[in-house]
């Protein structure tokens, strides 16, 4: 009997002593115990790049699909995807549209990652000044990039410049557009100072000071700041960045030639089942194409508009790289269905493509440079740069006689930007920057045959629908948030 007692008592003591209620996560790290070394900060910065991918899932809907570049290919299936996309295509997006919320949330999520890196205390664990500056610059660049997209899409947005809790978020209000731009410019100026101009080959893809300058130039252009400062910035990039056009347009998007000299900044994707694959090959390939275009079928998203297809001049080398007008199915039949080809690369598994998504490309800069020159010094100064882009595309150079005035050059540049940068999510932003979106789209709704075939037709776009609604979910949480007019 005594033995039993001893066993019992000792078992009690054993159990009581082996118990500590403060169990920490085993398979993850608690945030509180991280960001203590340079390596840990490096992982935090890498996470900011990683976070660039998620907003891209929806960004084409908010830009290309709303513009005149693409439309919905409406099959008779009743998928939720189609109903949500329908609204973008007709530029009448409701505040409850889930895709808008997803984009908004993904962007703010990555802003939170950037804000983590920009935490003073964390940054200071990096002893080496160069690296500390670089990390700070990278986070500022990415944050500015996100805010730039947000302000253009949603107008006045919330400026969140540090990690905030759920409770703190309730005290935030939307800031006027000017303040948002001020914030973006400050971030970019700081990034220009802090970022290196070039990286070692194995670090390529990180943001450089040239990327920051390019983005700043775009910010200025969007603000209508057509002046010597913007001109100087673009000229600097054009002459000193070391970036240049590749001789062949198709090489720019070749998966064996990523982060090439023409790419100033891109969002990178990598296939191989590592969770970093690009979904756009499958997204944009024709629906019901089986594996004839890409393995595991396509969704037929971002369906090219006829209007864009005919904008390509005869012999334009860019057309075949950008889109296809048909495909051959597994039985050798040619199916007349168009699709965006720019992001197509062979995949083994669905959504696991390889192609990077260019954000800032040298041809974009050249054409912006030409735009400023046209405004400040007239079409003749702009023409050589326009032709530089055209000649690379194997289409004839334009002559000065074609441009009687500044306006004609503006239109030529707009068109050139459209075909050169098609499906890189620039078209919408260009149209709102030049304040031409209503004219262009309402004409498009009439002229593009697809819209007149819709049973309900399409309503003309109004001024208020240029800016997207603040997602209803945000207003559901905090009813003091003001919605954009018209929603």
């Amino acid at each position, binding site marked *: 009997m005594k033995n039993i007692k001893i066993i*019992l008592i000792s078992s009690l003591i054993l159990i009581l002593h082996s118990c500590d209620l403060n169990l920490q996560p*085993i398979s993850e790290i608690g945030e509180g115990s991280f960001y203590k070394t340079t390596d840990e900060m490096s992982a935090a910065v*890498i996470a900011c790049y990683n976070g660039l991918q998620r907003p891209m899932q929806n960004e084409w809907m908010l830009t290309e699909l709303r513009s005149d570049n693409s439309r919905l290919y409406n099959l008779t299936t009743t998928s939720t995807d189609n109903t949500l996309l329908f609204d973008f295509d007709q530029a009448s997006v409701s505040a409850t549209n889930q895709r808008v919320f997803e984009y908004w949330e993904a962007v703010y999520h*990555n802003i939170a990652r950037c804000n983590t890196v920009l935490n003073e205390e964390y940054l200071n664990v990096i002893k080496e000044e160069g690296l500390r500056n670089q990390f700070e610059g990278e986070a500022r660049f990415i944050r500015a990039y996100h805010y730039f997209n947000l302000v253009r899409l949603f107008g006045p947005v919330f400026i969140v410049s540090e990690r905030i809790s759920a409770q703190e978020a309730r005290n935030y209000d939307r800031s006027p557009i000017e303040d948002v731009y001020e914030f973006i410019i400050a971030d970019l100026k700081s990034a220009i100072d802090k970022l290196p101009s070039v990286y070692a080959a194995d*670090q390529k893809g990180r943001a450089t000071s040239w990327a920051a300058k390019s983005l700043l130039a775009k910010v200025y252009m969007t603000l209508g700041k057509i002046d010597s400062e913007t001109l100087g910035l673009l000229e600097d990039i054009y002459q000193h960045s070391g970036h240049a056009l590749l001789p062949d347009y198709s090489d720019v998007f070749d998966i064996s030639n990523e982060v090439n000299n023409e790419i100033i900044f891109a969002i990178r994707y990598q296939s191989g089942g590592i969770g970093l694959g690009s979904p756009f090959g499958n997204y944009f390939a024709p629906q019901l194409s089986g594996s004839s275009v890409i393995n595991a079928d396509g969704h037929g998203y971002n369906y090219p508009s006829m209007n864009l297809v005919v904008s390509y001049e005869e012999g334009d080398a860019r057309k075949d790289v950008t889109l296809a007008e048909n495909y051959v199915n597994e039985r050798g039949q040619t199916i007349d269905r168009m699709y965006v080809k720019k992001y197509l690369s062979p995949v083994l598994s669905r959504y696991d493509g390889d192609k990077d998504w260019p954000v800032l490309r040298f041809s974009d800069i050249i054409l912006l440079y030409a735009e400023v020159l046209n405004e400040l010094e007239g079409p003749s100064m702009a023409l050589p740069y326009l032709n530089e882009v055209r000649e690379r595309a194997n289409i004839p150079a334009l002559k000065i006689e074609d441009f009687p005035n500044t306006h004609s050059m503006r239109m030529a540049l707009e068109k050139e930007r459209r075909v050169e940068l098609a499906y890189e999510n620039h078209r919408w932003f260009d149209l709102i920057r030049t304040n031409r979106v209503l004219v262009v789209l309402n004409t498009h709704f009439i002229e593009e045959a697809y819209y007149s075939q819709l049973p309900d037709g399409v309503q003309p776009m109004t001024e208020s629908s240029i800016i997207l609604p603040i997602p209803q979910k945000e207003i559901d949480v905090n009813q003091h948030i003001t919605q954009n007019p018209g929603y």
Partner: protein
Amino acid sequence: MKVKVTEKLILLLTVFLSLNILPALSQGLVVKGIVTDNANTPLIGVNVSVTGSTVGTITDIEGAYTITVPNRQSTLRFSYIGFMSTDIPVEGRAVINVIMEENVQDLGELVVIGYGVQKKSHLTGSISQFSDEHLGDLPVSRLDQALQGKIAGLEVRNTTSEAGFAPEIRVRGLGSISASNEPLIVVDGYPMSDGLSAVDMNDVQSIEILKDAASTAIYGSRGANGVIIVTTKAGSITKPKYSVKAYSGVKTSYRLHDLMDANEYVDKLIDEKAKGGVGPSTSELAWKSIDNYTDWQKEGLRENAYINNLQFSLSGGSKSARYYISGSYLSDQGIMINSDYTKLNMRVKLDADLSEKVKVGVNLSPTYSKREAPSANFTDFYRTYSWLPVRHTAATSAITGEPIGSYAHGRHFNNKEYIDADGNVFVASPWGTGNNNPRSIIDNESRNRYDYRLNGSMYLDYHILDNLFFRTSNGFYVRYEDEDIYHKKNTKREGDPNYARYTNTLFIDLLSENTLNYSHSAGDHHFDLLAGYTANKVRVSNAGIQGTNFPTDYIETINAASEIAIEDDGRRTYTDKEEELLLSGLSRLTYNYQDKYLFSGSIRTDGSSKFGPENQWGWFPSLSAGWRASEEPFLKKIDKLNQLRLRASWGVTGNNSIPNYAAYDKLQSANYILGDKSTLYPGLANTDIVLGNRAISWEQTSETNLGFDLNAFNTRLNLSVDYYYSVTKSLLFRQPTLAITGYQQFWNNIGKVRNRGIEVELTSYNIRKKDFEWSTSFNFATNSNRLLQLGDGEERLLSYGERSEIYLAKVGAPSIQYFGYKTDGVWISQNEIDESNLQVLVGKTVRPGTLKVIDQDGNKIIDANDRVALGDPFPMFTWGMTNNINFKNIDLTFSFHGVHDVTILNGDAYYQESKKINRAFTENRYISEEYPGDGKTPHLSGGDGMQWELTDYVLEDASYIALGNLMLGYQFPKKNLKMIGLSNLRVYLTAQNLLYYWYGDYRGINPEARYTSGNYSSPLVDGYQRGSFPVQRTFSAGLEISF
């Protein structure tokens, strides 16, 4: 165990009594005999006495007695706990064998409560007890399914008819909005999350449902959703008893969707066109020219599904050791193809008395189960048109050019030439989806899950004093789940790559419970005291491997994959581990005065690792009182009243069912590639959508329960009525946060929910004769749920389902309400639309035949402000009724149950295909102004008008009444059996869901079905149905043999 202790006490007592009276016996007639129960088992320790005298004895281990009676006219009285006393005149006989009838309504009955037992007559909380000797005869594969409709306040809903899947169980409504609402399951004292699937029904002795907070507070932080205690059978002091049970059953579908075939539908369209309707499109005309009819619903279902069960048990024991050993095999087919469930169970229960003071026992229960699940939903079957064959026929091959006998898919028929009735050739695309036909999807993807469970525990009782004993009970529960999925090339669509997925979970639960029990009586005062502490540690390891791109589909294991994917289309290769620790201290004092005034108080403290470091400990007190009014002299006089007890209780319980580590923001990998060689660089970030909260803590429910129990008319009538009122506060709430934080939700303790209701349980022994017994049990429950508070002054929370349909949680209303547009039939004419002068800002163009949305605010504008609450998914009341009839050797049981005034949202209305071919959506539909149908059914919307799912048009009343179970048995006469060496032989037939009746406007085929995954796993999103499999009706025949 406790039952045995009491029995022995009585036995000792009677021995003692008989010793006292022995000297009185001197002369007279000697009578001998054997006392058995009606199963012919000898009864040991039966009190045999001579009426009107002090002469008495007890039966021995063989059930035998010898007694000397004063004279031939004496009468013998046989009494035994649990049995009805009988008086038998001696009439000069020397041998009197007696079969005693069990007393089903024994007032000395014990009820299992948390960490102990209590006399049923002395209960102060609300506990329902359920035991049924034929429980194992029901042809269902899980214990919880057998409980449906049996207990007031326990709602069991078979949300899917798939074999082996857990039903949804709710005790007294919905108390939590982000944490789980599943009750705690305790099997033989061991809390087991999946206890009801692990226990074999034949092993069940009794089930207790602890409903009020006072009863569950002893389980502290896990008690808020109620506790279900399962007690398994144990051996008793008998010779070895062998029992074999077997049954076989066949299942069929109760009802299928009423679908039109392709020709019929096109004819309908042609007819509609003549009446001013839209008429068929070219693609629909093509349907008619495809010469094929396939009943797709039947392709997804088995004509007959079978269930087979075999169980064996062995029990017995001597004074020092008792044993119960059982094994069972079950194979259960679901009604749909590729749905199979196989289970092997074993249980070994040993109890031994090492000495007067020390008692030990072990309870071991290994189980193995395999579950195969279909890889396609039933939706995909009933939305497939009848013109599509499973495999190409000569006719469809001629159209499509696909080889005969190969799988036919909708896309094969696109852009093909068809010939109409007039012989004209036209090109059409009759179907737009790229997906393969559902039958081929099911055939080409296999999903098998294997579960291995081992529950082992042992206890040691040490009787320190007569009235003080210590028990330590230690055990483990190990569960290993292993799942294989193989997805062949081109399974879902052309070009779909093959992959294999292997996942496993190792769940290890260690439990130590140590309690001290003390009881003391002094005069009219009786005390029972319990104190103890427990420690429970859980460790879970998960792993998944994703292998892709197999060169061939012949080898389905991952060694043949050409790539192991870290992430592939959202499926990852990973391992992760979690730990949880729960430390508790508990105590309870039960006191009664004169067995009349009853009091009980308990307190438990729990420390859980799930919560923030500052808030890990919580206290859970309870108090309850009862008054056995019938013991008062003024009521005792009333003959008809056997017992009347009034009860009142109050307690606080908790809920900790949230994921581990919710207090922390966790970092997961967020890598990126850099460099011209695309090198992977490691990154880490909190990739979750939920922010941690260091202050996170318990959810607390305080509940008050008032009730009474009445037993009257010579124990013929038994009535229990309970009223409860519970408020859950500091709700564990995954509260939406502004996404500008970078996250969508965060864990918080905020909000309040109230549940209140009435429960009635009534049992009546209508006839109680020797050869004819008939009893009826009836239960009834109502529950009303209100959200009292939500967030920081927020009034409402909207949650969305898969079709953007909205579930509203609004303060002052039920926690879930459907939210959308109220409609008033359909627009009959353009004139009517124009005259209404409404400006419609939501939905697509309004046309005649589309739903007429009511302008709630009367501002002539239809917009989001016109959305209103449209109903809730909570039933107004539920009931169940069971009748037991025994007539000679025949027994008959039948149980009804019903769920009433329950509204569901029919997601099938979303599909164009359902709208086209399902008569529930097409009959009497609007065609034209002249033929408006019933004025309520909209025309087939090709995208005009208001989306159906956002309106009350898809809300349906899914109330139902089911004859859930019917059993007819025949017991062979004992006398005849004895000759062939059997002690019992019974054969029986059962029918499940013989009748299943729904009377509302429900358009589906299974009122109980609910979607529970994805968006619908949130407790605030409920009531949605889509793709449900049919209700199944089962017939079975079985056999029980004991020897």
